[in-house]
């Protein structure tokens, strides 16, 4: 009896040990699986997000937060540039381009559990189109005067009608994060993969996984994989680079070319050059009639021949090679070749030819006297180029252009100004002669640049707010832009905008200099990262990223 009890006791002990060991092994495997599947992603934004209200987003930092937290009806796949269903299973745009009907997914909830339905879409559109809102997202939909009507057909179907055709209507909804009509948490209740967990002003924004996110992967596993994303606010690129090298950051979304090269030399697997981005850098002359600059200078700047000569005298290859370390391409025109559909492939970058430039100027009455270029009235060709201080690339481009133009006898003064002073000169006092600035494109569709190309628009930088077009070519651009905006035929729109690009290259109101490459860096701890050219370059697929623990 005692022997049996002893035997049973030993068996029990062995079974207990085996059970504990099994649990420990399983736990370790599970832990490793969890560690591989989740993790915290860390990267920086360059400035404080101004708002967490997705409808009021105006700056890049806020746009990044919106991208990660906002649920949208359709999503532009940043890699393929195709439009894909998101909260909407399907959609249809009417022939006249004024109406769009969405069929929504069912069974979806906001992050706080409030159910999602067509009523939320109607509510969001109503908020977005409020005339008092004045947001870039809402203004992008304003094609004409009149109200926007939303009709809830069923809990999963809604149609939205605009007063006038909106070109590229469906793609605009990529920027519209849906708000909850009924949630007490207002814009804090989200439909995106992550939700705001903590915000330390000036320091960090912490996003956590949205447990109610609607999407799953192909294996049926709930997305996102990441547990959280920590977004640090760090304006200084040197510090960002230091922290990345130290392993404190996992991504650098927009890497400077000199840092790209340094990092590539030691750790090539960390950096990625996705090729030309949508962004461009350009120089333009002040053509505003009431600008407080001498009349003879206005006459130079308003001459297409002068502008073209300047364009020919600039060595764009050197700008790309020296300022951007080869991570840029000479620009051919208003759109980058990265915009595959809309770029006019017939256009080629202006070749560097100072001799041709000088001949062109001489045909306009300019002449070289003791190495200095003078116009037909004997005025020495001297002008200033202003650009924003703090941008090393623009300052360097300005100095290289200064040197290029010196070779044809033109004396250029380079002045760097703080941004508000520069904007004031550019948009209000018009007290400038030439400017170097860049255009950051988030849209592929040229309709997003209506306010640049229309002569009456605020952002028609070289001569804004014209009551009537002052030149025939600007009148032609106005006609073509309006034509493409009111058409739903993609082929006709493309033809119209191709012609706009050709006119811009002929007349050179903007002297397009280069298209920067999209440079980024990602730590090897990040799995699934695939850098692209559309913003956000590195975390466009954040819901499928994982970060392995160190």
């Amino acid at each position: 009896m005692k022997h049996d009890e002893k035997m049973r006791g030993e068996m029990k002990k062995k079974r207990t040990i085996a059970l504990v060991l099994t649990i420990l092994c399983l736990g370790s495997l599970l832990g490793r699986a969890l560690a591989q599947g989740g993790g915290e992603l860390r990267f920086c934004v360059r400035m404080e997000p101004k708002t967490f209200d997705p409808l009021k987003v105006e700056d890049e930092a806020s746009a990044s937060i919106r991208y990660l937290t906002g649920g949208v009806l359709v999503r532009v796949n940043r890699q393929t540039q195709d439009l894909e269903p998101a909260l909407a299973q399907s959609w249809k745009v009417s022939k006249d381009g004024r109406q769009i009907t969405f069929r929504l997914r069912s069974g979806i909830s906001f992050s706080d559990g409030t159910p999602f339905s067509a009523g939320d879409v109607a509510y969001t559109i109503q908020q977005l189109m409020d005339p008092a809102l004045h947001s870039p997202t809402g203004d992008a939909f304003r094609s004409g005067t009149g109200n926007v009507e939303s009709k809830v057909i069923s809990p999963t179907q809604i149609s939205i009608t605009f007063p006038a055709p909106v070109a590229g209507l469906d793609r605009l909804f990529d920027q519209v994060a849906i708000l909850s009509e009924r949630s007490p948490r207002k814009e804090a209740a989200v439909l995106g993969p992550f939700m705001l967990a903590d915000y330390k002003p000036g320091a960090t924004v912490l996003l956590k996984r949205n447990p109610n996110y609607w999407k799953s992967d192909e294996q049926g596993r709930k997305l996102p994989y990441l547990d959280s994303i920590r977004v640090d606010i760090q304006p200084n690129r040197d510090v960002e680079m230091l922290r990345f090298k130290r392993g404190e950051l996992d991504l650098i979304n927009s890497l400077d070319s000199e840092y790209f090269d340094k990092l590539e030399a030691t750790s090539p697997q960390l950096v990625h050059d996705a090729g030309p981005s949508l962004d461009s850098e350009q120089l333009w002359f002040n053509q505003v009639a009431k600008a407080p600059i001498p009349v003879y200078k206005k006459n130079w700047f308003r001459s297409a021949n002068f502008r073209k000569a300047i364009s020919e005298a600039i060595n764009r290859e050197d700008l790309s090679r020296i300022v951007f370390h080869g991570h840029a391409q000479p620009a051919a025109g208003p759109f980058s070749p990265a915009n595959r559909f809309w770029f006019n492939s017939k256009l080629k970058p202006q070749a560097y030819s100072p001799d041709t430039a000088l001949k062109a100027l001489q045909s306009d009455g300019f002449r070289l006297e003791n190495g200095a270029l003078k116009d037909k009235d004997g005025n020495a060709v001297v002008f200033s180029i202003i650009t924003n201080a703090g941008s090393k690339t623009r300052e360097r481009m300005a100095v290289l252009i200064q040197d290029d133009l010196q070779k044809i006898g033109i004396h250029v003064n380079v002045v760097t100004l703080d941004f508000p002073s520069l904007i004031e000169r550019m948009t209000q006092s018009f007290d400038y002669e030439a400017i170097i600035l860049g255009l950051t494109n988030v849209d592929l569709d040229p309709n997003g640049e209506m306010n640049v190309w229309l002569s009456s628009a605020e952002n028609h930088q070289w001569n804004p707010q014209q009551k009537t077009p002052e030149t025939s070519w600007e009148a032609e651009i106005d006609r073509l832009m309006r034509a493409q905006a009111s058409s739903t035929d993609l082929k006709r729109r493309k033809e119209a905008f191709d012609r706009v690009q050709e006119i811009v290259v002929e007349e050179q109101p903007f002297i397009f200099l280069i298209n920067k490459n999209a440079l980024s860096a990602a730590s090897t701890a990040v799995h699934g990262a695939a850098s692209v050219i559309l913003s956000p370059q590195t975390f466009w697929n954040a819901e499928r990223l994982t970060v392995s623990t160190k």
Partner: protein
Amino acid sequence: MLKSRITGHALALVATILLGGFLSATLVRLAPGFDAEEQELDPHLSAESVQALRATRQQDHNVWRFYFSYMNRAAHGDFGTSLALAQPVRTLLRDRAPLTLRLLALGLGLAWVAALSFALTAAWLRISAYDALTTMVSGTFLCIPAAVLALFSVLWNVPGSLAIALIVFPHIYRYARNLLAKSYSLPHIITARAKGLGEARILFWHVVPAVAPQLLAVAGVSVSMAVGAAIPVEALCGLPGVGQLAWQAAMARDLPLLVNITILVTLVTLLANSGSDVIGLMVRGQKS
């Protein structure tokens, strides 16, 4: 008598602070770029939206009206809303001030300890090689841009207060060193040495008290120096303090925030300098 003097001083302090706020508002308002908003350049914005953006600045065009309205609201505890960050100024300052105060206190403490150690040792030893060495060390830090010192602190993972200390220490050292050296030529010091008093006793009992009022004045201005140093250090080290806020506000021409920060800085400067004046008077009173 004493009560009326204190009241007079307090009123003068308040008047100076208010004047500082008004002058700051005037400077910001008159500087170019006040009406400019970076968002204007967004091509998606309609003409009406651009006008609406500009209109938000119009209400602050008249400096007098702005400042009067600001003082009226401030009397009720409302210090306005930041234009750049769209948050109440009171909340912004309340959240960020403790970090800046800690940074300043630590930075100033380190700076003074280092500066006085070097200066007193140099005064005591009076060896030209040591003097040259300390001059070289302090001169080197004086010549390094504040931004570079801030970046060094990030690189070597040291607190931002060390960067502030390194920026301020050369100033304090130089004043202290010169003042101590000069006071060695005072008649009573020469007499004390002639009478055979020990160097340590001479230094701490006769030299230092002779320059105490001036050193206290240096202490007062060192607070202003540290406040100025905090701006690049916080901005570059990513420290969410008042210095970082001041830089953001300056670049955005954020009038409500700038006025409040100026008033805060004026208050700190006045308190520090007034404090050093009062203690200096007491010390001078004790000596005579």
